[in-house]
């Protein structure tokens, strides 16, 4: 779809612009639902549509009442606290174990590489409801059901495939002669790892970590089964809110989460570009 040549026929011109119009409509479909909740979250009335005052852009038709509710309501605050308590620990667990394993997997001779990879990626493939059911059955056998530890372990397992995928992708372009050079210059393996390998694969590790974090932070099915009331996270609170009676506070929370995802997306994009730049520098 390069620029339209000057000799294009009317039909070609029509198709060219028609195709662009279709694409614009699809982009609109993708982004509109996210954008529409932002203004709606400032609606002080418990309706989920625009009031006449909001459409006329009157200042007093907008209010922060939903945000106030989010920051003062004990239920929402508890949910936020639980999310913040679970996601980082689960992320740390999956990143540390996942990075080690990804380094192992990218060595040149790994026995049963395919089988191991399939097992490690499986939490991403198996439908969440099945993971949740299995974990519910098994964790209640070993006394982890309804505990903080149980939820953290479950979320860490769900985040691991993302870490494995992003870190192995970074390691694919990793120049092995760099570690050999470091060893040749007298660095021991640990020092080589921290001084040479780690800085180069760091972008991959961080973006894998962000994926793992968002997986845990957004996760609701597994926590619904493995957790108990004491581990009620933000998505869980939203889920119950949406299922029972939909309160306008949900829109405020949704808006905050959209802002968070914009931040995460920006970070991941910047990291990806940095990683590409770094890799471009190392001789292949």
């Amino acid at each position, binding site marked *: *779809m*390069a620029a339209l040549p000057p000799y294009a026929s009317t039909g070609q011109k029509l*198709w060219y612009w028609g*195709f662009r119009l279709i694409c614009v409509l699809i*982009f609109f*479909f*993708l*982004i509109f*639902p*996210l954008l*529409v*909740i932002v203004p709606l979250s400032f609606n002080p009335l418990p309706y*989920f*549509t625009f009031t006449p005052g909001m459409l006329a852009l009157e200042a007093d038709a907008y209010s922060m009442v939903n945000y106030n509710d989010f920051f003062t309501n004990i239920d929402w605050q508890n949910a936020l606290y639980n999310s913040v308590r679970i996601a980082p620990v689960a992320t740390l667990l999956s990143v540390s*174990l996942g990075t*080690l*394993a990804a380094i*192992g997997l990218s*060595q040149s*001779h*790994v*026995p049963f590489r395919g089988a191991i*990879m*399939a*097992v*490690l*990626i*499986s*939490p991403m*493939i*198996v*439908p*969440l*409801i*099945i*993971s949740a*059911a*299995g*974990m519910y*059955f*098994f964790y209640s056998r070993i006394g982890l059901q309804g505990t903080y530890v149980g939820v953290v372990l479950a979320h*860490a*397992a769900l985040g*691991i495939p*993302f870490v494995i*995928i992003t870190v192995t992708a970074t390691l694919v372009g990793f120049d092995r002669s760099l570690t050999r050079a470091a060893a040749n210059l007298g660095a021991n393996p640990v020092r080589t790892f921290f001084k040479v390998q780690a800085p180069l694969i760091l972008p991959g590790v961080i*973006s894998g970590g962000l*994926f793992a974090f*968002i997986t845990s932070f*957004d996760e609701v099915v597994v926590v619904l*089964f493995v957790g108990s009331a004491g581990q009620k996270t933000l*998505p869980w609170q*939203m889920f119950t809110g*949406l299922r029972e009676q*939909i309160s306008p506070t949900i829109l405020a929370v*949704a808006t905050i989460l959209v802002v968070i*995802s*914009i931040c995460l*997306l920006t970070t991941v*994009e910047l990291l990806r570009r940095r990683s590409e730049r770094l890799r471009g520098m190392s001789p292949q």
Partner: protein
Amino acid sequence: MANGENVSGPILAADGRPLRQSLARALRLQKLRALMLIAPLLIFILVTFAAPIADMLFRSVENAIVPETLPLTVAALEDWDDASGQPPGEKVFAALRQDLLAAVAAKAHTKLGSRLNYEQTGVASLLRKTGRRVKRMEEDGDLAAQFAKIHKSWADPETWATIKRFSNAYTSGYFLNAVDAKLGATGIEARPENERIYIFLFERTLILSVVITVACLLIGYPVAFLLATLPMRTSNMLMILVLLPFWTSLLVRTSAWKVLLQQQGVINDTLVFLGIVGDGARLAMINNQTGTIIAMTHILLPFMILPLYSVMRTIPPSYMRAAKSLGATDWTAFWRVYFPQSVPGIGAGAILVFILAIGYYITPELVGGTSGTFISNRIAYHISSSLNWGLAAALGVILLVVVLVLYWLYDRIIGIDNVKLG
């Protein structure tokens, strides 16, 4: 090397060992080191993830509750012929009384009742009632008559046949139930018309998943094509519009659709305002299949666009130009030259979207109403509401098998190493 060995024996490494041995040793060490790095995670996944799945497989066939609660009865029933049409003899009733006395003391008889009730309705109340009265029975009297007096079902050979059929520690009962069948007197038989729901639900899950996959493909293909053919700078900017929904919480997107599609929601309001539909005839777009399809197509669309895009990026634009310079029209050039090369991307995207769609739970639960729910909603219902865990496990295993077959297919076609994120 073979030549060298012939002339002067094995080649030696610096430390005097044969080179072959030395290399093998180095390779072994390397393998061991790689495995040591992988081991912690592998163990972690096996314990936190694989063991639960195995537990679910086990629960879908496990039936220990019957032989454990009624050990004497099960043993005594061995000699009884369930085709005889007669209730078993006094010996079996004596064993049942013994077993029930122990079960009532351990409060296990109600659990057994709910287990057998899945196979024959009425057994739960039968066992509850019998459990209350079994202590007052006279040990020496005619036990068969006493049991029949408590509940006439004890004189019915069908009750005994059910107990006998499910007296093994393992059962296919849950799986049969999951495909709308049961183990009857004459072997496997279909359930009555009004009790069949699972085949229908599996079919609906498959059909809706196919519809969602096709919708994602139809909507995703043009966008991926545009992104792949635009200059890098512009396409990176537009890519944000695809990635932002991808990164946004699933619940945020679901609640957005709930808000948009409601009867009093933004879309209906706009349509009424524009005069397209009357105020009294607002469209019902939520709590039905339409809601599920719209919301899930939106949610899964990035998973279609991203693999399509990464394949289309690798198709050299000069091929299309070459086709056109050889006289092909725009359409022929696209259909005969470009499209065939984008098929791997279609395969990758379609399998990915289908795998994700088939096991979806949250979105159908929130916007699907009753006509737009999936098999996963039924699994969740059996775990948390009806407490029929065996059936939930059996349904889960069937779903898992479908997904694993697709996963295997995906691995064969695309390779799991080639999964890319963002």
